[in-house]
């Protein structure tokens, strides 16, 4: 980050926050931090939309934030909203209204992007992260709208879901249940929501548990304000004490804000249930706020970004679920990498697309599990629903199209699958390279140990070092290389160079 001021506005489900920081020689210094309470999520989770009154109040708050930024002469800022706005049916109206009244352009973070930012923050904020990631850890973002959980084991994300039981939402679901009944209902509901992650955790050993999200403020309020380490038994004792109390009584007895008192039981149940499935007592809370994390992320100030390996490991884990052929997947990945790198002057694509081709290589046969015929379409459907922190929706669209088209079909026949802003020629280039890479291991036996790419005038020769007679590979190469010739205007040929 260059020297200067950077601002972040975060619209959460229960409050609006703003942070302004100054960067001097790579160091970040907090200049201003503002928090205004406004339970946007209460509207969204009960009515499904944000009332006009709340829209107007939001504009007032954001107008105030805008003035503050003008005072400080902040030139660069981002304004992001999470589930409180994301799940409201009238979010477009809200965004438009705010822009007209304040000039602030809001971006709605999708839950997995939010999780990715928080995950990146964790990697950077935990001092001994390299030790932590070697074993198993659970990371939960408990906010008002959602609870997003990531389970990582040996540098591989084996579970990642944003589940709809944030504290405010939970409270709203059981609004009509009496105080004592509420805790029972929360417990059962949360158990149900955690059933799948519980199954997955059963297979690994979780060593560390981290919590983030707006609810950590409540935990800090009751326990050690300045600490990052907590014990779940304290949380359980507190829950026993307040179980029968009304929100008014909680405010009176403990001095908590009313909006926080309303969700206290849901928060405590959620924490204790999540801890129960991990079998641990100790849990940690990262010391910084979400606006701070956003600020560091959007100003590109986080140093540790080596996330690529996580994605690959995680995809390999998902592959097991679909009983994929790992050796084939990795071979195609190796092949596509080589083809992409060797033919840069032919395809002229930026390196970022290589990563997408590699993801396609690992996942292209996942759909076989559903049905071998039509498997490319099944893989496409699976990929459309795969959420991994760090692979954004837009990237996944490109990957899923490559996967859909990886067999010998006419790309132009599949136009209906293309989102309006995706460049068809770009997809054709990626598919053309992918098909060649896939054909080189079409027998799934890794008979081509290695290959070199020779570029001559109007012809590319793939010279394959073969360990066995290649029959299927040759047959498939002939069929699958046609698109390559059409797209790049050069012939591509396969030559054999057997390893004696």
């Amino acid at each position, binding site marked *: 980050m260059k020297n200067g001021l950077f601002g972040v506005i975060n619209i959460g489900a229960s409050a609006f926050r703003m942070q302004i920081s100054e960067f001097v020689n790579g160091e970040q210094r907090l200049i201003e931090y503002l928090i205004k309470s406004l339970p946007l999520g209460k509207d969204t989770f009960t009515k499904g939309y944000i009332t006009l009154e709340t829209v107007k109040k939001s504009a007032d708050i954001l107008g105030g934030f805008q003035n503050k930024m003008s005072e400080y002469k902040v030139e660069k800022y981002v304004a992001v909203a999470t589930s409180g706005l994301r799940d409201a049916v009238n979010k477009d109206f809200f965004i438009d209204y705010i822009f007209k009244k304040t000039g602030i352009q809001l971006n709605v973070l999708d839950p997995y992007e939010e999780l990715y930012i928080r995950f990146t923050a964790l990697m950077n904020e935990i001092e001994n992260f390299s030790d932590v990631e070697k074993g198993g850890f659970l990371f939960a973002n408990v906010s008002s709208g959602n609870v997003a959980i990531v389970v990582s084991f040996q540098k591989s994300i084996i579970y990642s*879901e*944003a*589940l709809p039981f944030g504290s405010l939402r939970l409270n709203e*679901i*059981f609004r*009509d*249940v009496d105080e004592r*009944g509420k805790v*029972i*209902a929360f417990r*059962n*509901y949360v*158990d*149900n929501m955690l*059933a*799948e992650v519980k199954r997955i955790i059963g297979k690994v050993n979780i060593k560390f548990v981290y919590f983030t999200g707006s609810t950590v403020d409540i935990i800090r309020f009751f326990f050690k304000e300045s600490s990052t380490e907590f014990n779940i038994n304290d949380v359980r004792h507190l829950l026993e004490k307040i179980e029968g109390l009304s929100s008014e009584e909680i405010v009176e007895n403990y001095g908590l804000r009313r909006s926080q008192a309303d969700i206290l039981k849901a928060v405590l149940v959620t924490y204790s249930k999540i801890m129960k499935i991990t079998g641990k007592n100790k849990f940690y809370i990262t010391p910084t706020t979400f606006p701070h994390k956003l600020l560091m992320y959007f100003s590109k100030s986080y140093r540790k970004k080596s996330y690529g390996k996580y994605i690959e490991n995680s995809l390999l884990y998902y592959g097991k*679920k679909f*009983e994929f052929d790992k050796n084939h997947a990795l071979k195609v990945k190796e092949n596509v990498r080589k083809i992409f790198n060797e033919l840069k002057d032919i395809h002229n694509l930026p390196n970022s697309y290589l990563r997408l081709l590699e993801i396609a290589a690992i996942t292209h046969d996942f759909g076989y599990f*559903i*049905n*071998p*015929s*039509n498997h490319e*379409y*099944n893989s496409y*459907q*699976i990929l459309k*629903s*795969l*959420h991994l922190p760090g692979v954004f929706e837009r990237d996944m669209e490109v990957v899923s199209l490559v996967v859909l088209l990886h067999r010998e079909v006419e790309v132009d026949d599949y136009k209906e699958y293309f989102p309006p802003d995706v460049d068809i020629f770009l997809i054709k280039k990626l598919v053309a390279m992918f098909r060649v890479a896939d054909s080189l291991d079409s*027998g799934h*036996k890794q008979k081509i140990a290695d290959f070199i790419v020779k570029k001559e005038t109007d012809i590319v020769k793939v010279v394959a070092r073969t360990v066995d007679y290649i*029959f*299927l590979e040759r047959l498939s190469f002939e069929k699958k290389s046609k698109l390559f010739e059409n797209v790049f205007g050069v012939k591509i040929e396969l030559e054999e160079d057997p390893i004696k």
Partner: protein
Amino acid sequence: MQNNKKIAIIDLGTNSLRLQIFSLEKDQFELVDDFKEIIRLGDDIFKFGYITEDSLQNLIENLKQIKKICESKQVDKIRFIATASLRDTKNSEEIRESIIESLKLEPEIISGEKEAYFAYLAASSNFEINDSKVLITDIGGGSGEFVIVDDGKVVFSESTKLGCNRLLHEYFRNDPPLPSEIINFKNAMREFFTKRPFDRSIEHIICLGGTLNNVASIQAKTAVAQAKRVKYADRKFLKRFLRIIANNNIEKRKGIKGLEPKRADIILPASLLIDVLLDITGRSGFYTLSDGLRLGILIDTANQMGIKLSFQKNHENLKFSRVYDICKKYKGEIAHAEQVRKLSVILFNYFKGVLNLNDEFLELLEAAALLHDIGNHISYSQHHKHSYYLIINSDFIGFSNEEIEIIANIARYHRKSIPKKSHENFVALDENSQDIVKKLSALLRIADSLDRSHEQKVKNILLKERQDKFILTLMGKGDLTLEKAGVLKKKDFLEKLLNLEIEIL
């Protein structure tokens, strides 16, 4: 998959040469690879009575490729079957020896009766044929097998010369055919069939063989429907289709969407034959089973190896044994699925009168209840949509494609949104099916809520009607707060359909 066996089935027919590789694990099998070459040995056999040297060389070349594929795929067992292709050719023995000599692969030339038996095996693995009278046909290139199964027993079986390639050569000289050729052909078929017990007591017709499967594929509109192992073609469509192919020459027929060009000629006698059969039996359509013969051979091969497949063990209810297989494949939570099924049945029986539901719809609700959560295998979020997609792409036994669409839609609406006109999957259904989906999904929503904790706490439910409302009483062990809250949240759709309030006690 581990501990599985790979079995290659090579099927040399008069029309095509097929290789299918199946993976066999415990008592389940799955098709993993499929290769096909249309070689049309029948053209020689019906013209000259024997296979010519050129065709033999072509066959051996193709078999070499197939053998290489088998080696490359490391199959555990190869079973090579030849049907009328080698059975009916004068130089059968010579061809057999040439194949053995050049390939070290011995074809098993099977009798027509054995072929009919394989057809029966295949049909019994994909249809409920134990409680009705079913005619199974396998119209190949050189022969046609006919089997009648009545209440699960084979009561008639015959291998005939009615292969579509042979019929084409015998009856049709002109392209497009002359009306007189069509009339002659139909009369000959009618005469042939009426001498056999093919009458109106036949309840269903199941056709194996690629050509009639192609007819059903043309009627199926979507790629998903075309990929199904079991398809249905109705007679209205067949009539329209026959008008088109009878009035166009072979070249023009190749332009018909979905028609396999190499079948453009033989599709005419095959379609006419089945039309006559439908007429005689009074049926309004026929089922097709793709890969039928090879499936039969696979089942027979597994049985020879001492393996009984899951459908052979569970004759009681084939339909639901497959539903359970699908549920298990996607690691479904069986206890919850069964509980939701049980509660769905109670709700159905209580409300069927008010909602005007026929008893036959209950099975659709039960299947949806068992499968509603399978989408979790893909991802929890949006799992109702994944369940829809997985159900649509699964091979069922005994449910028609329309019924599978309904089951998938019921599962789709077990949570979140109720059916809407803006949903593609819902508007694709006809009005009647939409009505069934609405009613049955409204019941499933309640049944699923009644096991919200997934702990099967509700042991029974009681329903009573009071003047202006229904009273639903939950009976069970432990705390039922979650179940009650669940029903409160999901009951509105059923209330809307009933136009009455539901109160929970």
